[in-house]
């Protein structure tokens, strides 16, 4: 029983991180039809930026701030202006392919300029175990879960409760009309790219202490985020959150109740079933064109 509880908490913690990455992924899709195949590498990179800052002598807190700022410049601003803007009007596929190339580029750059080996990464939350109602649970999992939920709550408040959020949603849903009623659509799209960069940097900060910093760790993460986004609903922020949590829990349960060899297969089979029987995702709206 305590084993199951621990698995659930650990699953929710990784799931919450997947949710952060998946939310960013769906935001990019909604505002600019960008399928970012480099999203996993986007999560991998900020940890290395922070490590580099620490190697240069910065204390941990400063390294975090620098890492997040650099991520927002590189993975938000530069990504949008140098790659997405010139390619956006040419359709979904060439841009998706370009992000695949970007993924290779980021991976190789980290391998070349940093290290091919896995590096340990300090945790920003306390580690150890605590006892809740007589059950031992990992404190790190609880803190990661709490932080991720806080971030997601902050984001949903921004999107649903503020004028800025409403403008962003308008820009995503109908750019033409949004432009007519005076929404600065371009600036809103840029903002979603910056938010995505912030979310991946946060995810990087939370997940790297658990899985170590490695140039290739983006592959698994990116795929988990894709699956979470699609399972939950490609066009819905809340769908991506639910999908992330679900995949995290499913992944952890599969690891201990299904064979470890086929652990990775469980979310994939789930993904195929969802796409075939409910292609708009568990919480998504149906899109006429794509279904």
């Amino acid at each position, binding site marked *: 029983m305590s084993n199951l509880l621990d698995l659930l908490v650990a699953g929710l913690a990784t799931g919450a991180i997947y949710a952060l990455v998946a939310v960013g992924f769906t935001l990019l899709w909604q505002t600019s039809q960008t*399928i970012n*195949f480099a999203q996993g590498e986007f999560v991998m990179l900020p940890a290395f930026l922070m490590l580099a800052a620490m190697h240069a002598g910065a204390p941990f807190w400063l390294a975090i701030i620098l890492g997040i700022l650099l991520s927002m410049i590189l993975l938000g601003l530069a990504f949008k202006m140098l*790659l997405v803007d*010139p*390619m956006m009007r*040419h*359709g*979904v*596929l*060439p*841009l*998706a*392919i*370009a992000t*695949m*190339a*970007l993924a*290779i*580029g980021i991976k*190789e*750059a980290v*391998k*070349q300029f940093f290290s091919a080996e896995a590096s340990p990464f300090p945790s920003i939350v306390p580690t150890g175990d605590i006892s809740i109602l007589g059950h031992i649970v990992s404190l790190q999992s609880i803190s990661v879960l709490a932080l991720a939920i806080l971030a997601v709550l902050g984001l949903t408040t921004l999107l649903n409760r503020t004028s800025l959020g409403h403008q962003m949603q308008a820009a995503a849903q109908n750019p033409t009309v949004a432009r007519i009623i005076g929404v600065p659509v371009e600036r809103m799209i840029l903002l979603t790219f910056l938010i995505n960069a912030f979310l991946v940097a946060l995810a990087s900060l939370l997940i790297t202490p658990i899985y170590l910093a490695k140039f290739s760790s983006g*592959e698994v993460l990116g*795929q988990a985020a*894709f*699956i979470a986004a*699609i399972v939950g609903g*490609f066009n819905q922020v809340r769908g991506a959150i639910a999908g992330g949590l679900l995949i995290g829990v499913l992944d952890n349960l599969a690891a201990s109740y299904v064979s470890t*060899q*086929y652990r*990775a*297969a469980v979310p*994939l*089979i789930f*993904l*195929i079933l969802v*796409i*075939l029987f409910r*292609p708009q995702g568990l919480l998504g709206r149906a899109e006429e064109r*794509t*279904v």
Partner: protein
Amino acid sequence: MSGLGKSLKIALGLAVIAGLIIVPMNFNRYGLFILSQWAVMTIAAMGLNLTLGYAGQVSLAQGAFVGIGAYAAAIMTTHGWPLPVAILVAIILSFAVGWVLGYPALRVQHHYLAFVTLAFSTLAFLVFRNESWLTGGIYGISNIPRPHFFGIPTNKPLPFYYVCLGSLAIVSVAVWWLIRSPWGRAFMALRENPLRAQSLGVDTRRYTLMAFAIGSALGGVAGALYAPLTQYIDPVPFNLSLSLDLLMMVIVGGAGFFLGPFLGAMIAVLLPEWLRFTEGYYLMLYAVAVMLLLIWSPTGILGILDRYLAERRTKAASALRAVAKSRLETAQ
């Protein structure tokens, strides 16, 4: 004018073919291996070009079919079956699995389809890795024999390069014929406007499945040649990144152009080798090159050529018009 252009094209094609036959004769082992790899990857990319470029169905599973073909060939040839039989089995197996994978394409399109095929690709990798009674698991299958053709052994790199090149030639002719047949036209109708295709009496259901199955079968052929080329296979080369690489080859070369896969595979296989003098930077430069190319021309290399030719044609036409107009005016 157009007759001259056509004979120029034929002459150029013959020169390239002659070059591919004669020039590698004094290549070293490694050069021949890379060229053979180019031929094999071109076959796989041609299959994906049929599915994606002509029929418009996004697939991220072509690497898995190369894997299926490679394992089929490796298992059969190490048990004493001749390679041609193994290739036939690889074709049938990939065709059947590709047909089944086509069913989701009847329900979902575009990025949803991309993700179903992506999931399939990873599942296939898991099977290659975990079913060690069949595939040898992470230790793979070694000592894959190379075939004898008409009593000539192809153990040396050069004869086996000719096997790959010959297979590429056969596949090219078959694909060339296919895309000019009513089938190819039906595929293109499927890509351009499925609704209109259906209303004109094209059985879109059957052709969608066919586009997947035939494209996948070519992936199987490529795999069945890959196994004896490397003579050792394990699951690693057939993971998701092979599918992504093949997709990149098709798009970079120019999706929907017959010669696109040849150029795309050349860039994906040969460009990293040419950049090797930059040591650790070569894959990074390759990634940057692909991104710059796609920013410049999202329709790939042949898209640039296509645009240039179209521009020249319009210019020639407007020049003719101007001449005709001035003649008309002087006549008045």
